[in-house]
């Protein structure tokens, strides 16, 4: 089976540009596509981060003075959309998934290389389209949730472009999901059992199931919304007898699972990184698998917790409270297992490890505020306030983005054959960790005390705390500098890494760095114990 693709690949590789240029081509090599995803996503992160900086600058004063109010709304809509659909989702799924999954299943490429390339190449144009809409007629300004009737009544061209690009990005995501499911389930190297796969495969399997089941619903919903905008139908337009709450149900049916689409792969990545740097097997492999699947199932039935203050009847509020809070159980299992993995290990304290530990601490915090938000009476007060903003940045930034950085430190030697500089890495970590907490911790207080989200102007009593938060954002912006310097210096003249600098056992390390076009010179190794640390060593 694998060979079938090899042949195709060999043929196509010949006509494809070699060297640096291949990253700008329609390459079918999963490793090239993975890097394309990562670099593209990171560029969009810089854009999204610049927009975040604009938000934080505006919020240093209680008046709306840095930019006009409608521009503020465009900026926050773009910020949310870009960060989610063009940074986190493509990177934790597309980038690492494409790079690692074929290695992990012992294949030479993804199941559908062509579909894979198409999925990637949908991203840059739709991202650019989204950004250019800002310069042409103004971008969408109804928030990333695009609730009607606001999204129907705001300037329409921006909203239509927003819908179009989210549809394309959703399509890309679905293609990716199909590809991952097929690769993991059907392309496994003979002899490799499902329960022997590295944890990231399980995470991607769970994520892809969520993608396939929920993204199409978003697509359908956005099509209906665009009808409301251009064809004057009334699905979500109350003036024409429509029901605005139906949109919210459909939207969150996708967008709650979407938060697990953003974090489950990150869970998988951490499960790869921790055992290697702790020199211990992943604790509780089986329960980790079950907890992923538990999160997938529960994740599909909790969406209405975003709607506790809209038109939901009491019984619905209660059902969704209990279901949501129960996600803490499978998630908790994962965190306890990671700590148990660290316990008694021989931990190398390096940038990858620090970012992973930072992730654990930040995510537990964000998860706990999440469980609080899940309680209807609690949420009624803080819904749509900065408390929610703080909650999800603790998870998406403190969780997913920390893991992305951790993974970059971890796999950079594999991709380039060079090591990243540890001093700069630790500086990057320290700045990010401090800046992040400084930026988002105070926002909890803001929300509890009466600052709603998505506002360009606010009660002057909140100015000081907002300024602290903005200072934190400044730290985060600065923290990207050592990171970028580190990348550029190390690509050029970093220390040689060797094939397996961490002494890892997962299959991607059992080949040269960088790996050859078809992943292994010879046959794919059969790795049945990806976490078999400590089994064959002399103590101390």
């Amino acid at each position, binding site marked *: 089976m694998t060979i079938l693709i090899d042949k195709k690949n060999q043929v196509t590789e010949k006509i494809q540009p070699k060297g640096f240029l291949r990253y700008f081509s329609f390459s079918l090599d999963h490793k090239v596509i993975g890097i394309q995803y990562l670099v593209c996503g990171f560029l969009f992160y810089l854009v999204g981060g610049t927009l975040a900086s604009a938000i934080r600058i505006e919020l240093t004063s209680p008046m709306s003075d840095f930019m*006009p*109010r409608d521009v*503020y*709304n465009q900026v926050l809509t773009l910020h949310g959309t870009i960060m989610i659909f063009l940074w986190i989702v493509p990177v934790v799924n597309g980038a690492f998934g494409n790079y690692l999954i074929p290695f992990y299943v012992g294949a030479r490429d993804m199941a559908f290389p062509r579909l894979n390339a198409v999925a990637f190449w949908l991203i840059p144009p739709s991202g650019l389209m989204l950004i250019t809409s800002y310069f042409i007629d103004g971008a969408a*300004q109804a*928030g990333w949730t695009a*609730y009607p009737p*606001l999204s129907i*009544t705001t300037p329409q061209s921006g909203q239509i472009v927003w819908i179009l690009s989210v549809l394309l990005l959703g399509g890309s995501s679905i293609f990716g999901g199909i590809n991952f499911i097929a690769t993991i389930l059907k392309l496994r190297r003979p002899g490799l059992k499902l329960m022997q796969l590295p944890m990231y495969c399980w995470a991607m399997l769970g994520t892809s199931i969520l993608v396939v089941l929920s993204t199409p619903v978003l697509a359908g919903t956005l099509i209906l919304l665009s009808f409301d905008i251009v064809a004057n139908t009334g699905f979500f337009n*109350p003036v024409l007898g429509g029901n*605005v*709450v139906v949109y919210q149900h459909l939207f969150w049916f996708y967008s709650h699972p979407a938060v697990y689409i953003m974090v489950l792969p990150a869970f998988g990545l951490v499960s790869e990184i921790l055992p290697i740097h702790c*020199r*211990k*097997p992943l*604790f509780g*492999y*089986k*329960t980790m698998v079950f907890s992923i699947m538990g999160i997938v199932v529960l994740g599909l039935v909790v969406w209405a917790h975003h709607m506790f203050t809209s*038109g939901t009847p*009491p019984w619905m509020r209660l059902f969704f*409270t209990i279901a949501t809070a*129960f996600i803490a*159980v499978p998630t*908790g*299992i994962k*965190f306890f297992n990671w700590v*148990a993995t660290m316990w*008694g*290990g*021989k*931990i*190398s*304290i390096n940038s990858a490890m620090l970012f992973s*530990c930072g992730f654990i*601490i930040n995510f*537990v*915090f964000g998860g*706990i505020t999440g*469980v*609080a938000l899940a*309680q*209807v*009476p*609690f949420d*009624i*007060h803080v*819904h*749509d306030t900065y408390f929610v903003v703080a909650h999800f940045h603790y998870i998406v930034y403190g969780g997913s983005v920390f893991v992305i950085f951790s993974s970059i430190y971890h796999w950079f030697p594999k991709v380039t054959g060079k090591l990243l500089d540890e001093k700069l890495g630790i500086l990057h970590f320290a700045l990010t960790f401090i800046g992040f907490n400084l930026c988002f911790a105070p926002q*909890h207080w803001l929300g*509890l*005390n*009466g600052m709603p*989200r998505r*506002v360009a*102007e*606010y009660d002057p009593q909140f100015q000081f705390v907002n300024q602290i938060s903005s200072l934190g954002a400044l730290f985060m912006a600065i923290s990207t500098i050592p990171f970028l310097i580190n990348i550029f210096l190390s690509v050029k003249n970093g220390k040689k890494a060797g094939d397996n600098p961490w002494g890892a056992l997962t299959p991607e390390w059992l080949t040269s760095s960088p790996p050859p076009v078809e992943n292994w010179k010879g046959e794919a190794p059969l790795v049945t114990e990806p976490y*078999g640390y*400590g089994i064959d*060593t002399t103590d101390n």
Partner: protein
Amino acid sequence: MLSKSSYLIFIISGVIGISFWIGFNVNLLPTEASINAPIYDELFKILFIIGLILFIGMSLLVVYSLFKFRKRKGQIGDGIALEGNLKLEIIWTVIPSIIVLVVGLYSYNIYDRMGGMNELNHDHSLMGNNSEKIWAGISQSNNNLGLIDTNIEVSAMQFAFLFNYPKGDFISGELHVPVNKEISVKMESKDVIHAFWIPEFRIKQDIIPGQPTVLNFTPTKVGKYPIICAELCGPYHGGMRASIIVEEQSDYEDWFNQNKKDELIA
């Protein structure tokens, strides 16, 4: 030297003690100005303490393992080949389940006490549209028929709140209510979704076009509090605010009588 388990007990009780201390002494919430507020704050306190215990505990574990089990100079080889432990797994499945379940039941209780489970009736016989369907909200008591002291209709539009007092047949830009009386507001939006939020009362409800909602509440403290629109509704969303003025019954009546339309057919 203390034994290992006494260290453990010492640390655990330390974490719990500190969490309780913070929970009871750090106030993160604004003034309590309605019947709902102290109920809400009780829930907040519990969640805060549980959250702190879990968070501090987890952070300590991570930082401690990072420090204790760090690789020393010259050390080679791996850690112990420990692949799992069923007993531990069961413990950390069951304990969080219990916590989550207890918290869920408790917050149900809180929600019930806040009036969330009551039927959404709202007496608007004066306006003659009592039959209208109420889609959502919080209704403090079941005694809806004429027993609620003050009925007010809120209409929200880009970017203002208007308060209609049907009994006095007038519209105000400020919400005046008597203290310690049950107030019922019925809310409807003219254009997009807005939300009605009074942080000091710990209540919020979206105001949805085409789907009337209600909020019942009882202010307990005289004063002026902000009413904030909490749902993105356009460029001036941040400026969409109003005030609620809670006053003594007599002050309220004065204000009411000043504003009410004079009897047309005297």
